[in-house]
């Protein structure tokens, strides 16, 4: 499974208008009432694909830790003011529409979905996407992790168990993968899951690697960016949650 393209937006919280302006330059989609979550996702996915010709059976996987929580909070606050929920607000809290908009923008008819798994949304999403490419349910993959800044939710860290992480930024990180070896940036050799520190140690002992990254410091896509720019040939990426469950990815170039 080969990674061919990557694209990352990792900004301080930015006004949606700026993202819409950037999106207008590359897409004719009408997203006038759409949420920042949707706009960020489409902007990232389209920039990742760029001029790449897709297979026609591309799987689109949008992963997210918080999805449309900022829009949900707005709707809840509006409800308290006894305002009727407006259709576009309802569409914005239906987080899964995000993958539809990307599918529409790319004119793809393959499967598309929104996936989540606490602290490991991208890692679990990638595991599923790679499996589906392996069994030929999809021919190629566009996968991203998208989360808008939580700065609009007062003191958001009180709702999170791993409070060391900062979710103030707008994030939209994307990869394009296929089974085509030529011109690939790197290759995902295999994935192993674990449910304890002991099992993780056992897995790591079995792998001959040059460098490793962990999700507590870098996202998967940031790790790939660092790996590609560096001299190392073999890396592992470890995604682990608060209960010591997670996944190890072994990647080579």
């Amino acid at each position: 499974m080969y990674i061919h393209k990557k694209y990352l937006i990792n900004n301080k919280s930015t006004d949606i208008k700026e993202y819409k302006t950037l999106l207008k330059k590359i897409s004719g989609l009408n997203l006038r009432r759409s949420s920042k979550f949707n706009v960020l996702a489409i902007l990232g996915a389209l920039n990742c694909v760029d001029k790449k010709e897709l297979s026609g059976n591309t799987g689109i996987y949008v992963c997210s830790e918080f999805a449309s929580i900022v829009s949900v909070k707005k709707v809840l606050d509006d409800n308290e003011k006894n305002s009727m929920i407006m259709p576009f607000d309802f569409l914005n809290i239906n987080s899964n529409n995000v993958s539809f908009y990307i599918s529409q923008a790319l004119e793809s008819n393959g499967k598309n979905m929104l996936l989540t798994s606490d602290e490991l949304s991208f890692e679990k999403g990638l595991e599923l996407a790679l499996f589906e490419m392996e069994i030929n349910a999809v021919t190629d993959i566009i996968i991203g992790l998208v989360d808008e800044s939580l700065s609009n939710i007062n003191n958001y860290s009180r709702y999170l168990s791993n409070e060391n992480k900062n979710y103030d930024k707008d994030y939209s990180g994307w990869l394009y993968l296929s089974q085509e070896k030529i011109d690939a940036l790197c290759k995902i050799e295999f994935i192993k899951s674990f449910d304890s520190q002991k099992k993780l140690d056992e897995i790591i002992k079995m792998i001959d690697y040059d460098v490793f990254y962990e999700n507590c410091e870098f996202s998967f896509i940031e790790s790939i960016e660092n790996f590609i720019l560096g001299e190392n040939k073999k890396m592992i990426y470890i995604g682990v949650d608060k209960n010591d469950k997670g996944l190890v990815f072994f990647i080579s170039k």
Partner: protein
Amino acid sequence: MKSNCYIIGKSLICSLGTTKEAIVKSVKNLDQNNYEPFLEDKFKEKCFYEIDGFSSSSSNRFFEILKKVIDDALKDASLSSKEAEDLHIFLGSTSMGISINEEENKKFHNNESKDELVHIRYGFIGTFVEEYIKSKHKSLVLATACTSSINAFSSASQQIKHNKIKKAIVIGIELFNQSTYDGFSSFMLLSQENIYRPFDSRSDGIILGEGCSAVILSADKNKDADFKYLASSNICDNYSETTSEPTGKPILQCLETTIENANIQLNEIDLIKAHATGSENNNTSESNALNTLFKKYNHKTKVTALKPYLGHTLGASGTNEMILILYCIENGFFPACLGYKNAIEGSDFSPLIEHKNVASKVNILLNHVAFGGNNSSVIIGNKS
């Protein structure tokens, strides 16, 4: 080398009841004659298929229902708590736990709580299930609107079939929340006459409901009659985020691909459980797809719809309706499409108007259509 994937346990909590016996008894007793009085009684307070008998607090109710569904499914599958730790978790929902945040937010605005929300992580239900059954595996939560839990079922089944995992629990959950109710209302999609009539010329919209269900899947069967996953398909209809292409072509494509993937003929399918939301667009597009399918293969398969019994339970409808149909088959019948009398214009098939006795070994196709153009079909069967 491919393996098999069997449904070895299941449970459902819905407005018809909280046990298989109560649910089957309700379905059996319903017919076209007593359907409207049944609805009138059910919708005395609000036009919604509501689950009775749990806490009044949204948060307590949410987790009480979820825990009961999991416990009942594990019991049905005869799995010990130790064996449950090996289950991979797949969960499908549209609104996730928004009802819990609604309740807390209301308290906050009434100065009864310092927190505006309870959960902000989208996948918190998955983590709850992991911790509840002490699973060794990380959960995966799928949100594809009304196809969420059927897609969760397909994903889990494919992973078992391809020997990636051995056992899984698939959960669909959708409980009442004001935001969804008002959202559907804002699109003017809800029935005004308060009578659910999918595919009928008098059909005037959707009636929402709530439900939670769990399916236990395994590479090994428990009982001879256990249903096996045969095939599935998922495609995107790019026509609109809220409606299907009216010709039904993408729905047809999904149905045909599933039948092809199952390597069977249309005439080997004993029943099609349609999505049948009762909305004007779904009545047209799904009818068109089924009409074309039947003409093309020169065979009319029996069709039914289950939302008149459960309401439209959105992301949970996949597993909810699968289990309801399996309960009925275990009791020797296919349930009728209540509320149906006359076909909509252009449709030349009629769904079942009364319960139909069936043999215990059948193949069924479950069709689902969702906001965001997400079309999914699954075929399961227990014929040798």
